[in-house]
C-alpha cells in the first residue's frame, strides 16, 4: 500500500519529465523537417486575376461586323469584370497591333502578355457567312502558354450578348467550378409615390422591367428554384396577402387566410414554399404547396417567427424568431425537428439568406440604429462584417454561385440597389432608377436570357 502511494507522485514526476523531453524532441524534429529559409508573402499585390481582352479579329473582313469587333470585347470585359474576379488590363498597354490581333495559340507571343502582367488572355474572332454570325472565343493561360477553353458560337447578330455571356459562363466554370451569374436575374422593389412594385432586371441591373401592377405596396419577392414562379406579398386586396405567380403564364394563386401572409421562401427543388402566416393570432412559419395549401406548421413558439430561408439541400431552414426576446436567427433541422440559435452577437439580427454554397448565411444586424450586413458560418462561427459606415445596408441576397451579394443601401441618400463580393469587396451601385429600390432577390441560375 505504502509503496503504491509513494510511487504515484514519483511516477508523475517521471512522466512529466518524459513528457517534456518528448515534447521537446517533437519540436526539434519538426524544426529539422524543413530545411529551407522562407520569406513570408502574405499580401497579394493584386486581388484580382489580370486578364487581357484585345479587340476581336474581323475574320470575314466585312464592314457589317467591324463595329462588333470592338463592342463585343468590351461587353465581354464588362461581363467578366462584374464578377469581381478579374482585373481588366488596359488595351493601351498591349504589346501588339490592336487592329490585327493574333487569336490562335501558335501565333500568340505569350511573353508579350506576361510582360504586361496578364495571366489570362481571351481572344475572339468574328465572321459573317450567309447572314449567320460566327464567334470564336478562346481563353489562354499566358503563363502555361496553353489554350484553356475554345468555343465557337453561331447565330444572328442579335444573339451576340447571349454568346458572350455563355462564354463568360465557361470562363467562370473553369475558374470556380460554377457557371456564374450570367443567366440570372434580380427581382427588387421600386417605390414611387407611396406604391411599391416588383421589378425584374438582368443580373447586371440592365433592362429593369415592372413585374407586378398592384398599384399598392408589394413586398418580399421570392424565386422558385426552377426560376419559373415568384411568390410575394401585396396589399392589393387590403391585407398583406401572399401571391404565387407564374413568371411566363398568367397564373396566380392567393391564400384565403386572415392575418398577414409574408416572407415566402421556396423549398429548393420542390413546388413548395415556407411563409409566415398569422391567422392563428401568432406569426408562425408554415409549409405550403405551390398551390397555396397548407402542408404543416414549421415553427411552434409564441412570438414572431418570420423570414425563412432554406439550405441548398432543403434539409434545414433558417429563420428569424423573437423567442429569446430579441429578433435572432435560428436554424431548424427538418429531419430531427431540432431548432438551434445561430446568432448571439447583436440584439437585432434579421433578413437571413442561405448561400447556395451552403456554408454561410448572410444577414443584417441593427446596432445603434444602423443596419449593416454580416455573414456567418452555418455552425455559428466566423462572423464577418461586410458593410460599415455607409448608411443602412439591408436585405442581402446571394448570387446563385455564392460569389456575390446584392443588397440595398442608403449610402447615397435614398435607398438603392448595390452589389459586393461575398467578402464585402467591390461594393458598387447596380441599378439606376428614379424612386427608392429595396429588397433585391437574386434568381437561381436557370433563367433564359
Amino acid at each position, binding site marked *: 500500500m505504502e509503496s503504491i502511494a*509513494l510511487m504515484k*507522485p514519483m511516477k508523475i514526476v517521471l512522466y512529466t519529465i518524459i513528457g517534456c523531453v518528448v515534447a521537446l524532441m517533437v519540436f526539434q524534429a519538426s524544426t529539422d523537417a524543413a530545411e529551407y529559409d522562407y*520569406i513570408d508573402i502574405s499580401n497579394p499585390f493584386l486581388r484580382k486575376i489580370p486578364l487581357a481582352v484585345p479587340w476581336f479579329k474581323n475574320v470575314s473582313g466585312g464592314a457589317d461586323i467591324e463595329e462588333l469587333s470592338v463592342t463585343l470585347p468590351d461587353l465581354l470585359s464588362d461581363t467578366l469584370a462584374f464578377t469581381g474576379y478579374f482585373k481588366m488590363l488596359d488595351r493601351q498597354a498591349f504589346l501588339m497591333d490592336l487592329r490585327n490581333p493574333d487569336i490562335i495559340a501558335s501565333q500568340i507571343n505569350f511573353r508579350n502578355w506576361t510582360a504586361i502582367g496578364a495571366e489570362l488572355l481571351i481572344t475572339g474572332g468574328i465572321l459573317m457567312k450567309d447572314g449567320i454570325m460566327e464567334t470564336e472565343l478562346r481563353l489562354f493561360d499566358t503563363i502555361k502558354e496553353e489554350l484553356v477553353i475554345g468555343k465557337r458560337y453561331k447565330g444572328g447578330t442579335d444573339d451576340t450578348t447571349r454568346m458572350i455571356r455563355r462564354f463568360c459562363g465557361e470562363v467562370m466554370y473553369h475558374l470556380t467550378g460554377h457557371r456564374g451569374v450570367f443567366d440570372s436575374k434580380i427581382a427588387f422593389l421600386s417605390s414611387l409615390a407611396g406604391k411599391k412594385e416588383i421589378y425584374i432586371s438582368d443580373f447586371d441591373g440592365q433592362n429593369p422591367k415592372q413585374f407586378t401592377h398592384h398599384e399598392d405596396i408589394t413586398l418580399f419577392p421570392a424565386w422558385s428554384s426552377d426560376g419559373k414562379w415568384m411568390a410575394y406579398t401585396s396589399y392589393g386586396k387590403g391585407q398583406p396577402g401572399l401571391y404565387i405567380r407564374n413568371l411566363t403564364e398568367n397564373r396566380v394563386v392567393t391564400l384565403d387566410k386572415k392575418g398577414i401572409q409574408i416572407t415566402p421562401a421556396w423549398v429548393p427543388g420542390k413546388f413548395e414554399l415556407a411563409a409566415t402566416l398569422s391567422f392563428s393570432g401568432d406569426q408562425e412559419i408554415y409549409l405550403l404547396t405551390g398551390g397555396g395549401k397548407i402542408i404543416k406548421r414549421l415553427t411552434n413558439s409564441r412570438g414572431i417567427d418570420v423570414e425563412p430561408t432554406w439550405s441548398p439541400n432543403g434539409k434545414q431552414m433558417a429563420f428569424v424568431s423573437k423567442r429569446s426576446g430579441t429578433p435572432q436567427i435560428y436554424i431548424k433541422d427538418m429531419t430531427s425537428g431540432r431548432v438551434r440559435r445561430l446568432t448571439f452577437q447583436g440584439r437585432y439580427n434579421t433578413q437571413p439568406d442561405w448561400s447556395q454554397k451552403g456554408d*454561410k448565411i448572410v444577414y443584417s444586424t441593427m446596432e445603434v440604429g444602423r443596419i449593416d450586413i454580416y455573414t456567418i458560418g452555418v455552425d455559428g462561427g466566423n462572423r464577418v462584417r461586410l458593410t460599415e459606415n455607409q448608411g443602412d445596408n439591408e436585405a442581402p441576397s446571394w448570387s446563385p454561385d455564392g460569389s456575390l451579394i446584392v443588397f440595398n443601401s442608403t449610402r447615397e441618400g435614398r435607398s438603392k440597389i448595390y452589389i459586393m463580393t461575398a467578402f464585402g469587396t*467591390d461594393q458598387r451601385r447596380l441599378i439606376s432608377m428614379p424612386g427608392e429600390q429595396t429588397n433585391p432577390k437574386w434568381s437561381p441560375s436557370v433563367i433564359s436570357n
Partner: protein
Amino acid sequence: MTLKMTVKNNHKTSHTKDSASLARLYGGGNENRLVMMAFTASLICHCIIFSLFIYVQTHKPKQRSAPIVMNVKLVSLPEYTGPSKQVSKPSVSKEKKATSGKKKVSKKAVTIKKKPASKPSVAPKTVKKKVSLKKKTYKSEKVKENTLQKLEKKIEATTSDRIAKAIDEIKAKVDKTKDRTPPSESETPIPESKQLGGDGEAAGGKLAEIVDIYRVEVAYKIQQNWAFPEQLADGRSDLQTLLVFKIMPNGEIKDLFFTDRSGNNHFDESAFRAVMKSDPVDPHPGSVSTPYVQMGLRFTPEGIQ
C-alpha cells in the same frame, strides 16, 4: 494545465482512498522525506512546464518573423500596367534572431530552421537585424475610376505612413550596424568577391546580408506579381503554400517546387504563377559567387482578410 490537474486529482484520490496508509505515511520520517522530495521534484517540473508554456505563449506571435521567416509586408497598389514612375517606397523588414542554445529551440510545430546562407557563425552574432530596401513600384498612368481602386488607394493611404516610419526605423538600425563594423574594414573596402572567401565573421555577415537583401528583392518582385482574388480563398485565412526554387546567377528561376500545399488549388496555383511570372529575376549581385541562390517563399492570405 491538464497535467497539473491530474497530479492534484491523483493526490486527492490517494488521500481519500486509503486514509489509514496516509496516517502511517505522515507518521514515518523516512517516508515523509520521500514524499517531500517527490513534491519538490513535482514542483520543479511544474515550474519548468509553466515557464515553458509562458515562453511559448509570449513568443508565439513573434515566431512568424523569428529567424527563419522573413516578413515581407508590402504596399498594395491599385494596378500594374507598365513601368512609369516611382511612387512609393515599400518597406521590407526582416528580423533575425539568434538560433543557438537549447533554449532557443523553436516552439511551434511548424517552424522552419534558418540555414544561414554562407556562414553559420553569423547567426549568434546578429541578434536582431533589419534591412531596408528601396525599390520601384509601378502605377498606371491611366487610372480608371472605379470603386476597387478607391478601396485599394485607401489601403495604400493608411499603410504608407506606417511603412514610411518603418523604413526610417530600419534605416536607422542599419546605419547603427554599419557604425559597429570595425573601421579597418569599412575604410578599406575589399572587393566583395574576395570577402566571400574570407573567414572573418564580419565579412561573412556582410555577404549573408547581401544575399538576404537579394532574396528579399526577389521576394518583393514576386509579391508584385502575385494575383489572388480573395473570393477564391473561400474565407480561409489559414492557407499556407511553401515554394522552393533556385536562382541562377543570371536571374533565371529553376527547380521550382512545392514543399507544402495549402489544399486550395487556386491558392497554390496563384503562388506558382507569381513565381513563374517573375522569371527571370535580377541577376545575382556581383559579390555572390555561389552557383545558385536557394530561395523559399511562404505564401499566406493573411493580408487580404
